[in-house]
């Protein structure tokens, strides 16, 4: 079982506000569509199994794991990636806070944290430390020990509250 010849189908979605039309086979993962076809390489492939959160993007504003999302199933939906979080060349409040607090070391996990953290502060601008820690539970960082990431999100929350 399990050997099929899949057929491509036109998939229409909005990525960072731009309408995209692309022929997708059913097994195309959203992360691959973004990185390989749309050249949006900010979303990272970490574990590729939903464990690390490096591939986090928003679908209709909700942070999801793009490595476990079939591209065809976001047909008709809005996708936001790290590239769409600030104006080109600029940085968002949270991105600036990451820089100021040294919340980035190797940087590989940072796009995922920014996507999760931005959505948290949008929905809960005054999020407590415990709420922040709970919200980023699915984003793994192997450098910072999380302290500076939590502080950066807290600081950005205070600024935007």
């Amino acid at each position: 079982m399990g050997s099929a010849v899949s057929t491509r189908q036109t998939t229409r979605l909005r990525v960072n506000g731009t309408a995209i039309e692309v022929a997708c086979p059913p097994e195309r993962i959203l992360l691959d569509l973004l990185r390989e076809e749309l050249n949006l390489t900010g979303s990272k492939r970490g574990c590729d199994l939903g464990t690390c959160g490096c591939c986090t993007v928003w679908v209709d504003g909700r942070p999801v794991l793009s490595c476990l999302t079939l591209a065809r199933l976001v047909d008709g939906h809005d996708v936001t990636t790290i590239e769409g979080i600030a104006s080109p060349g600029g940085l968002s409040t949270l991105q600036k806070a990451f820089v100021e607090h040294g919340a980035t070391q190797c940087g590989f996990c940072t796009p995922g944290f920014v996507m999760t953290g931005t959505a948290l502060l949008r929905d809960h601008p005054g999020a407590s430390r415990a709420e922040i820690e709970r919200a980023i539970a699915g984003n793994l960082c192997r450098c910072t020990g999380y302290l500076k990431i939590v502080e950066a999100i807290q600081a950005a929350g205070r600024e935007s509250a």
Partner: protein
Amino acid sequence: MHLDPFELHRPTTVDETVDLAGRLAPDVDYLAGGTDLLPNYKMHLNVRANLIALEDVSELRGISLDRVGAMVRLADLEADAAFAASFPGVVAAAREVATPLVRASGTLGGNLLVETRCFFFNQSLPWRESLGYCLKADGDRCHVVPQKVKCYATFSGDIAPALAVVDAEVEVAGPSGRRRLPVSRLYDPVGDGIHRHKLAAGELIVAVHFPPESRGLKATYRKLRIRPSFDFPELGVAVAARQDAGGRISRLALSLGGLETYPRRFDDLTEPMVGTVPTPATVRALADEVQKRVRPVHNTFLAPEYRKKMAGVFVRRATAEVLGVPESSP
């Protein structure tokens, strides 16, 4: 990692879905949130040529105090304050599933049917190939209990035990119509162990139904795992109870998941406690008996001896918490 090619189907009604599954069986899987199925597909575990996405089937949606649709995202269930007020143990369990990112996509029905897990199953293709595969995927023997031709993979859903103790029922649609069965009877304690649920080919969980008399039960869910913000359960204990003003128990149920091959209730131990006023000693006796009975095997991260002992500790703590009695010291 890549996914092997498959055909993706997107029905919009339950009838259409079940009909499609019947025609494509057995080379088909349902796709709900994808957070369990797609990692397994990427690991080339029991891949099928057809996926039926349940995304567009509107009947599988909706949250009320009587019914939660199978495609309700766990993130939406945990955010529903009215539901949480009536079924606190169910929401507590939902909040313990994996991470917020997984719960954003993961669904109630998906967690009920989450694939059982084992060291020898949840591995890459080359890893499994080098060992000659296992009963649950591509092989003919169990590496955990080699003397038996039976799969011992661990049931790893968090929500089923919490649903079982409030007497929730699953509504199932299939080729021969619809039926309802208690969550506690959705799972198969016998058989070959490879599939641990009693759904027939093509059957689909439509929703979970909640009896009105279970609203407002005192309930809790306690979970043992290595990383408290992340992992599958090494043990999950759900307790729900009701007591009169004098503390006398009018209802008590206990269910354990994450420990054995299916979530298990212990009605023969809890029912004799109905009508009694619980004490630290009676709670302890319950916990000791549960600990004596459970039989974890060595197929998860923590040693089975430890998980067995923790079953006693967690049952004692969870039951004491729900019944409002002080915990007896070990």
